[in-house]
């Protein structure tokens, strides 16, 4: 079965699910899951295809969320314009910071990206005048579109899932193009990649920027969807959660990653009493996956070409 047909079927299933489930709590969780899928799809391009790790992606989600929210709340800018500006600024920041950082390899890259995430987190935490600091930022308006307001769960659900599927579709297109082949070459045979005319460093910075674009877009939507953001949603643990979703889903598998990010976003929301145990479970998942299942759930989706 081709990837795109499977994607279409999945889209129909998600839409039908949305129309039949009336419970706003479930729709709310599914919308949040869609935002995770967006971030993780972007991270999958970086980690799964280009083989470059980032432990700071929650920071970029935070930038998308905070910049758009601050523009909208403090400067009264139209939410859509604020989102576009936030995504643009964050992606630009990603490109600028990615330029030196992606010269590093393997564990050095992991540490450097972790540091970037921590920097953003600490700025958000400390710049109280604009961000509200640890208390968070409230009063972010709801999105509306020419008078059509996303005021019910189902409206946002349809909007965010449609967007998510478009973004996945774009990623699949990219991976099936000459650039996808180039990134697979960079991942496994970096030195040989030069010989095929691939400007390895530039390509790395580019895919990093794309993944930052996905992350910041999800962050901005998150802010306007919940109406409230606080630094605790964008910490190191969240960055690692994203990596867990990619790794368990199977690096480079869009559908494996899709299901793990939905499941791993929803489960902690249902089992809130077990909150303290999530890091332990996530840690164990990573260890076990690397020891026994280095391809994650990828094997389950082998029949999709």
């Amino acid at each position: 079965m081709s990837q795109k047909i499977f994607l279409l079927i999945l889209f129909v299933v998600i839409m039908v699910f949305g129309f039949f489930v009336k419970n706003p709590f479930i729709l709310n969780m599914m919308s949040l899951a869609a935002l995770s899928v967006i971030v993780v799809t972007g991270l999958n391009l970086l980690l799964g295809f280009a083989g470059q790790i980032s432990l700071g992606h929650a920071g970029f989600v935070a930038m998308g969320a905070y910049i758009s929210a601050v523009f909208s709340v403090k400067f009264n800018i139209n939410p859509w314009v604020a989102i576009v500006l936030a995504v643009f600024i964050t992606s630009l920041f990603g490109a600028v910071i990615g330029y030196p950082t992606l010269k590093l390899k393997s564990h050095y890259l992991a540490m450097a990206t972790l540091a970037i995430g921590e920097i953003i987190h600490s700025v958000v935490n400390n710049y109280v005048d604009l961000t509200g600091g640890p208390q968070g930022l409230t009063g972010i308006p709801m999105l509306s579109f020419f008078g059509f307001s996303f005021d019910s769960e189902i409206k946002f659900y349809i909007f965010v899932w449609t967007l998510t599927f478009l973004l996945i579709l774009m990623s699949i297109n990219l991976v099936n193009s000459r650039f996808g082949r180039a990134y697979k070459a960079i991942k496994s045979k970096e030195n040989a990649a030069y010989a095929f005319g691939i400007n390895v460093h530039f390509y790395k910075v580019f895919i990093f920027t794309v993944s930052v674009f996905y992350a910041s877009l999800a962050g901005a939507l998150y802010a306007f969807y919940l109406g409230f953001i606080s630094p605790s949603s964008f910490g190191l643990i969240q960055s690692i959660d994203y990596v867990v979703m990619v790794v368990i889903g199977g690096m480079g598998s869009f559908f494996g990653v899709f299901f793990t990010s939905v499941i791993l976003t929803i489960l902690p929301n249902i089992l809130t009493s077990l909150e303290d145990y999530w890091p332990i479970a996530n840690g164990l998942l990573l260890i076990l996956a690397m020891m026994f299942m280095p391809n994650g759930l990828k094997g389950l989706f082998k029949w999709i070409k």
Partner: protein
Amino acid sequence: MDKIISIDSITKSFGGIKAVDNVSFFVKNGEIKALIGPNGAGKTTLFNIITKLYTKDSGSISFMGNSIEKYKSYELIKLGMSRTFQNIQLINDLNVLENVMLGYHINMKSNVLDAFLSLPKNKKYEKEAEKTSYYILRFLKIDNIEKKYPNEIPFGYKRLVEIARALVSKPKLLLLDEPAAGLNESETNRLLKTIFRIWEQGVSILLIEHDMNLVMNCSHSVVVMDEGRKIAEGPPSYIQNNDEVKRAYFGK
């Protein structure tokens, strides 16, 4: 312009050891030139300097009359220089056809937006890459394995796929790094014929090789290196009877 590439007094040391020591030679247009020498003679190092994976300490290289000083390693293929590797560098996540298409990367003019949105331009170039790659596979008579993955094909085929990938960009100079290493006799014979057929298409070839038989049968001219220095150069018959070459290979 009868020199396709000319290498002029190249020197490179690693921590005090001269891996390549003041080596000069050139490859004529439409010539098959072999670079031979015992292990550790500096052949692959020289290859990596030519393809800019290593930086040289001194000397200069010009390709088709122009210095390649200002070009980066990933720009050389655009000039018409492509290479294979001593250790097979096929991408395991890509099948044979896709591996060869990777070699066509720079010939495709579609940009990332075309790719993201799968625009007609992207499709057009994908088709073109597929067609050209398939044509090259058929030229090398390995089109029957196009859908296989690198870990599913025999070693001899992997070498040929590498050569196909280097050929698909239509190079003017092909650099082969020990193409016969690890091949059995019949595979080597097949390689020999392949090299001639590539040469017939007007491609100049510079190859590093250990297999003397192959070198003596296919090359027009041979450069011998030992301990980083060039010790002899000339047609195969001359090299075969050169005392210094014998000394380097068999001791005193």
